[in-house]
């Protein structure tokens, strides 16, 4: 049999996880990445990674409750079997990282320490200082290096994925990639291709993501026929600091360790924050959400900041969305656990956050949406059939997607510290899928394909590049990008309305047209970064269209997607009977909204723009219920809802075995 190869594009946590698993099973992997994998964006993750652990278990926690928090936090938009499988694997994933040497913080007895993150009452989050992503990425990078030293992994760093190679039947047979130094473009034949290329924050100009998070790779797969799902769900993190090139995150762990968010009660009070007495401070999250306090899910915290700054005009800096994040009261021990992020604040703002409350702002942070992928449900466990050829596969046979680039795990809003888990989990479980695929090769082997398939695949990319380099246009790609980012940030983030979404779509069409007229300032054939950026800009424009049109079409509020025009008015009656009646009306409206909109948005590329359809969501494990964080009359709504008996067939937990998924 001809030698088989797997191409993994992307060496963040997801890509490294699948690479090491495949290499362990004896498979040869080409690992392609735009940056040395050790410098991938995962290195930025700060706060930690979630799973049930021995401590929370004794407090009544279970994998089931982790799943419940995840789907409730995500407003029920994710298919539940993959989420169940992920939460079941959580403890095993952390154990594995622990064995690989991740220096997780320890308790005095030497066990792993945990902190609490948003959207849960349990301390599920394991962490390594405030640089958990860096530590985890390094551990996996080291493992992959071990396999590289044994020639099972061949790295192509500073190589950029340009597109999948599809045969006449539409099956994926490899990828085309470009050496970012020599600019050589070549095909890589492969029997399976995995994209682990991360999120698309740059569509919004500046975000908390790294410079390379353009969504370029996902955009290219989408253009080649892989569907894109739930694009309109974009997480805006409540706490970041603005910079001229990037919005730098101040992790939720600051609040997990006890940090508090507040604004002065007096509008634009310009006193030194330390001199403002407690009675004149408005701790709005704590007041409005007594149960979760500062650790409400991110979409909610962000909207509250918006409300306090815009509607109540209490922003610390007029005309912006700025509030205080205050860690000045924390113990030295807690502060030490936050060193990694406090250093960032100090370095970039020149102020010591241990002594002065931090000024923070919301910022685009995470793409819940991504390339559509499949899964196979295991009816016995409610989770996945591990090793099924369908898991993580796109609409293009042989093309798989994992990590932030897929849409699968976080629904309408991601809970903090769940992404590192989904990245590693999806990387680990796609490995047996690929191993099985290589055994049977349902569509035949890449080695049996005509050589011309691979030779020809390079041509369009080469021609595009030559054309662009020689094109005499008037548009500047960097300025176009800035314009796109400004529009997207203004109209397609925290609060959305149809009028602005429509004008943004028109703007995107205009930008797309002007993109046809860009000129490069670098005409060289060696390490041309201008070219790479301009290519990615084309993909960002395309994704911006998918995101914005998806948002325009979805006339409801769900998770991070908030359209006040379609919000169900909260009950406000004081009198119990009236409140109960309002709750009934509320629940009916909520039911109708779910019937209409509890669906996955799926965008398919056509030459005339995206075509949308909607798919049912598998909510067979936990029936959807109203998300009532902080809502007035929440208890009454919950009572009325449970009496309505929507989708309720007795406690769901009993339907399937809990925990212990098959290996």
């Amino acid at each position, binding site marked *: 049999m001809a030698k088989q190869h797997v191409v993994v594009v992307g060496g963040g946590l997801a890509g490294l996880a699948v690479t090491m698993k495949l290499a362990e099973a004896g498979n040869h992997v080409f690992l392609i990445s735009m940056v040395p994998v050790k410098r991938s964006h995962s290195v*930025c993750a700060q706060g930690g990674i979630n799973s049930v652990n021995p401590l929370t278990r004794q407090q009544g926690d279970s994998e089931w409750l982790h799943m419940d928090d995840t789907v409730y936090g995500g407003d029920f938009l994710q298919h539940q079997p993959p989420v169940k499988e992920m939460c079941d694997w959580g403890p095993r994933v952390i154990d594995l990282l622990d064995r690989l040497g991740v220096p997780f913080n320890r308790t005095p007895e*030497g066990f792993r320490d945990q902190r609490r993150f948003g959207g849960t009452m349990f301390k599920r989050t394991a962490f*390594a200082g405030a640089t958990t992503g860096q*530590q985890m990425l390094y551990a996996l990078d*080291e493992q992959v290096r071990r396999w590289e030293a044994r020639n099972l992994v061949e790295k192509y760093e500073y190589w950029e994925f340009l597109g999948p190679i599809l045969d006449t039947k539409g099956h994926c047979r490899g990828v085309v990639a470009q050496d970012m130094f020599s600019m050589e473009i070549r095909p890589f034949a492969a029997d399976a291709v995995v994209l682990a290329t991360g999120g698309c924050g740059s569509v919004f100009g500046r975000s908390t993501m790294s410079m390379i998070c353009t969504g370029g790779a996902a955009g290219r797969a989408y253009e080649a026929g892989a569907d894109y799902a739930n694009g309109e769900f974009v997480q805006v993190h409540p706490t970041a600091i603005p910079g001229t090139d990037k919005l730098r995150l101040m992790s939720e762990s600051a609040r997990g360790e006890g940090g508090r968010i507040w604004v002065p009660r007096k509008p634009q009070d310009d006193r030194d924050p330390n001199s403002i007495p407690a009675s004149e401070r408005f701790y709005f999250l704590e007041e409005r959400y007594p149960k979760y306090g500062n650790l409400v899910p991110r979409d909610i915290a962000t909207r509250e900041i918006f409300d306090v700054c815009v509607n109540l005009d209490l922003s610390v800096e007029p005309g912006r969305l700025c509030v205080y994040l205050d860690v000045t009261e924390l113990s030295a021990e807690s502060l030490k656990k936050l060193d990694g992020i406090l250093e960032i604040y100090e370095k970039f703002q020149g102020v010591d956050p241990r002594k002065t409350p931090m000024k923070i702002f919301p910022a685009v942070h995470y793409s819940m949406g991504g390339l559509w992928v499949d899964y196979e449900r295991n009816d016995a466990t409610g989770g996945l059939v591990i090793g099924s050829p369908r898991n993580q596969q796109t609409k293009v046979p042989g093309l798989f997607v994992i990590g932030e680039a897929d849409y699968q795990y976080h629904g309408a809003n991601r809970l903090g510290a769940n992404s590192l888990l989904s990245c590693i989990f999806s990387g680990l479980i796609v490995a047996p899928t690929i191993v099985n695929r290589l055994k049977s090769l349902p569509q035949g082997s890449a080695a049996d394909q005509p050589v011309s398939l691979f030779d020809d695949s390079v041509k369009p990319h080469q021609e595009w590049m030559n054309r662009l380099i020689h094109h005499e246009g008037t548009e500047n790609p960097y*300025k176009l990008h800035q314009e796109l980012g400004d529009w997207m940030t203004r109209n397609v983030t925290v609060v959305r309305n149809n009028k602005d979404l429509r004008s943004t779509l028109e703007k995107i069409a205009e930008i797309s047209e002007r993109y046809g007229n860009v000129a490069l300032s670098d005409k060289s054939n*060696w390490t041309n970064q201008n070219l790479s950026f301009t290519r990615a800009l084309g993909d960002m424009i395309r994704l911006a269209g998918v995101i914005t049109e998806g948002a325009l079409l979805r006339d409801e509020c769900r998770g991070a997607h908030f359209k006040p025009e379609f919000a169900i008015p909260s009950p406000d009656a004081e009198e119990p009977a009236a409140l109960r009646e309002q709750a009934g009306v509320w629940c009916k409206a909520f039911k109708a909204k779910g019937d209409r909109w509890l669906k996955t948005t799926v965008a398919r590329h056509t030459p005339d723009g995206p075509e949308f359809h909607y798919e049912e969501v598998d909510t067979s494990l936990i029936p959807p219920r109203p998300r009532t964080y902080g809502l007035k009359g929440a208890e009454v709504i919950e009572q009325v809802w449970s009496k309505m008996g929507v989708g309720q067939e007795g406690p769901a937990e009993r339907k399937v075995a809990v925990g212990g998924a098959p290996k």
Partner: protein
Amino acid sequence: MKFKVKILRQDTPHDGSYWQTFEMPYEDGMNLTTVLQRIAADPITVDRQPTAPVAYDASCLEEVCGACTMVINGRVRQACSALVDRLLAEQPSLIEMRPMTKFPVIRDLIVDRSSMFEVLKRVKAWVHVDGYHDLGPGARIPPKQQDEAYPLSRCMTCGCCVEACPQFNDRSSFIGPAAISQVMLFNAHPTGRVDADARFEVLSGSGGIAACGNSQNCVKVCPKDIPLTDSIAKAGRDTTLYQLRKWFGS
């Protein structure tokens, strides 16, 4: 306010280098990666000559990925955390950027640091686990040990330390302070230490620990405050012990 930046450029690995100066309007909180972004958007020199954008390496933009290391005002550091106002306070006339000198230049400010990653293979900078199947948690680790490991584990292979090290150059095969520190990280790990002898073997050989001249330059420039000279001192002692053990066959 406007300020000037002078950049040492080189078009390809085979070309000579040349200086170019740019003038920039100051922006509040501006760092050098922003300066490079502004140049990319508008690549015109101070003499109003159009030029190609300056090539540079960067990713995280918050000093955690190690990509954007270069020599700035004569000191090796990360461009993303180098703030213009502080640099101008250091040296008011202009800001100078040049590529690191210890690595081959690819283009402009981009250098090839693959040798640093290669060395990590030689010293087996990993924990050799039995496999990636579920075997329960790792060893229990006292907080004190975690406190010692964590700082070493923050090395982002940025290259500052080797750029500053007088012993790391074309004429020597010295593996450099970052790699030595990684040896100490993995030798201290309960499972990682099974490969300790193989690592000491590298430290004992040419380009190993004996090549360090103890000038302490490395530790002064490490952006992550990694106690490199402590690691080196400890590595020196442990390597001697290893050699003794080897000679006496125990």
